[in-house]
């Protein structure tokens, strides 16, 4: 039996409501969005992912933390575990933008990278 789920697309700031008609894992039709919305609906149904941003501690930096994020959208169910893991990471200044602070996070193949330069404290 085909079911219709309503999901709100988060790809861009428009926030369209997508009507996703699917039979189990197979998507039959997506209404109410654009091409990117169709891809989002498929991923949201089968393997929901989000960009995750957080901070890690930094030694000798201008600030005590450096902001980091997942290079790619990260599996949603693993986010709490990732958050816990990042609280244990510490790096030393200077940090360069895009520098990897945690490689292959939780075996997902996704690196966690710095989102800015963090110079040393003067």
């Amino acid at each position: 039996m085909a079911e219709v789920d309503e999901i709100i697309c988060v790809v861009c700031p428009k926030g369209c409501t997508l009507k996703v008609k699917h039979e189990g894992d197979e998507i039959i039709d997506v209404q109410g969005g654009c091409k990117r919305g169709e891809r989002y609906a498929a991923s949201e149904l089968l393997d929901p992912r989000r960009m995750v941003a957080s901070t890690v501690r930094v030694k000798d930096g201008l600030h005590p933390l450096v902001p980091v994020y997942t290079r790619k959208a990260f599996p949603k169910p693993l986010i709490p575990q990732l958050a816990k893991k990042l609280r244990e990471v510490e790096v030393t200044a200077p940090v360069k933008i895009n520098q990897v602070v945690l490689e292959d996070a939780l075996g997902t193949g996704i690196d966690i990278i710095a989102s800015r330069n963090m110079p040393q404290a003067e």
Partner: protein
Amino acid sequence: MKHNYDVIVIGSGPGGLAAAISAKENGAEDVLIIERDVELGGILVQCIHNGFGLELFDEDMPGPTYAQHFIEKAEGLGVETLMDTMVLDITPDRKVYAINRYQGYIQLAARSIVLAMGCRERTRAQIMLPGSRPAGVYTAGTAQRFVNVEGHMPGEQFVILGSGDIGMIMARRLTIEGAQVARVLEIMPYLTGLTRNYVQCLLDYGITLQKQRTVNRIIGKDRLEAVEAVSVDEKWNPIAGTKEIIPCDTLLLSVGLIPENELSKKAGVLLDPVTNGPFVDDRFMTSVPGIFAAGNVVHVYDLVDWVTEAGYVTGKGAAEFAKSKKVKAGEQVPLKAGENVHYIIPHKLDPGHLEEEIVRLQMRALTPIEERVRVTVEDEDGDVIAKANEPYARPGEILTLALKPKAHEDLCKASSLTVHIRKR
């Protein structure tokens, strides 16, 4: 150091950076940014979440990455900077007085000034929250600075008042850092932030949002112990029998932003009581010739991409003004907010600019319309000069209408323009 500049930009957030870059690119030679923090970037420094750059770059960047792109661009173009420096005063003849700990009191002069001070959060006093005055009541942005930049957790058990974007983003951020967010309360019957933030920040983390509900009382002696929440009617009157005591040690307020215009007022810039920002033309020049305004100091945007875009337009205007000896302001047509429009930016425009470029009008709806709407720009006779269709109109989300060069002739004939948002 130099004392005379073509363009001085006050503030180095996204609006200020874009204005400085664009001023350089449009021929201003000496451009200076004055920033009160120790580094460039403004509020983007603490906005570590993703979602920046989707409109301009089709890329999903965190705030600091977005800022760094423009910081590097400004530095590459030779924009000068004065950091850790507070501007004390500006005058209508474009003198700038500032102070820092390295040079002491500084007096500068500019051919044009760009105001880019951004905005400020509304506080407990401004929404008149009753109750005691314990520690643990913060604006959401202050908590964001603590958590994301300075490395302090302000509490363990949170209630967030207001469904603005910063409030929702902080709800997620605090959850990721291990805190509990008991509730997000919104006094309006609708979400005041972006829908995508409701999904990504609240739904994803199982955080409850209650609309038409607010904080009625703050409870606690030294430290916040609980808040009393209550439902309200359309006129915000508490409804009997709906009280709930929610235990928490921290209350975050995400109850709106106000453009920061203390300096603008000192220069004699006229402010619009609806936006709390300056009256501006389509180059974002204020009522004082040569003084421009970029970004959230004009009106509070939803998206940084649009702040950047506005900054570019402003920088072009500032450079043109700085280069020309005499001001040749063309005939300007006033723009008015019509049916279901809360406000419209710019307040007036020079139809001549449409000859070669697109002029973007940005507006907020007064009340939500959850069905297809048409935005129209009409002249004094009610003739439609431009229109755009949108899937819905929500007060939390700015609507943009791009006036294209083909509207040039009609605009030249109009003596005033009114913008409406109506059901289709």
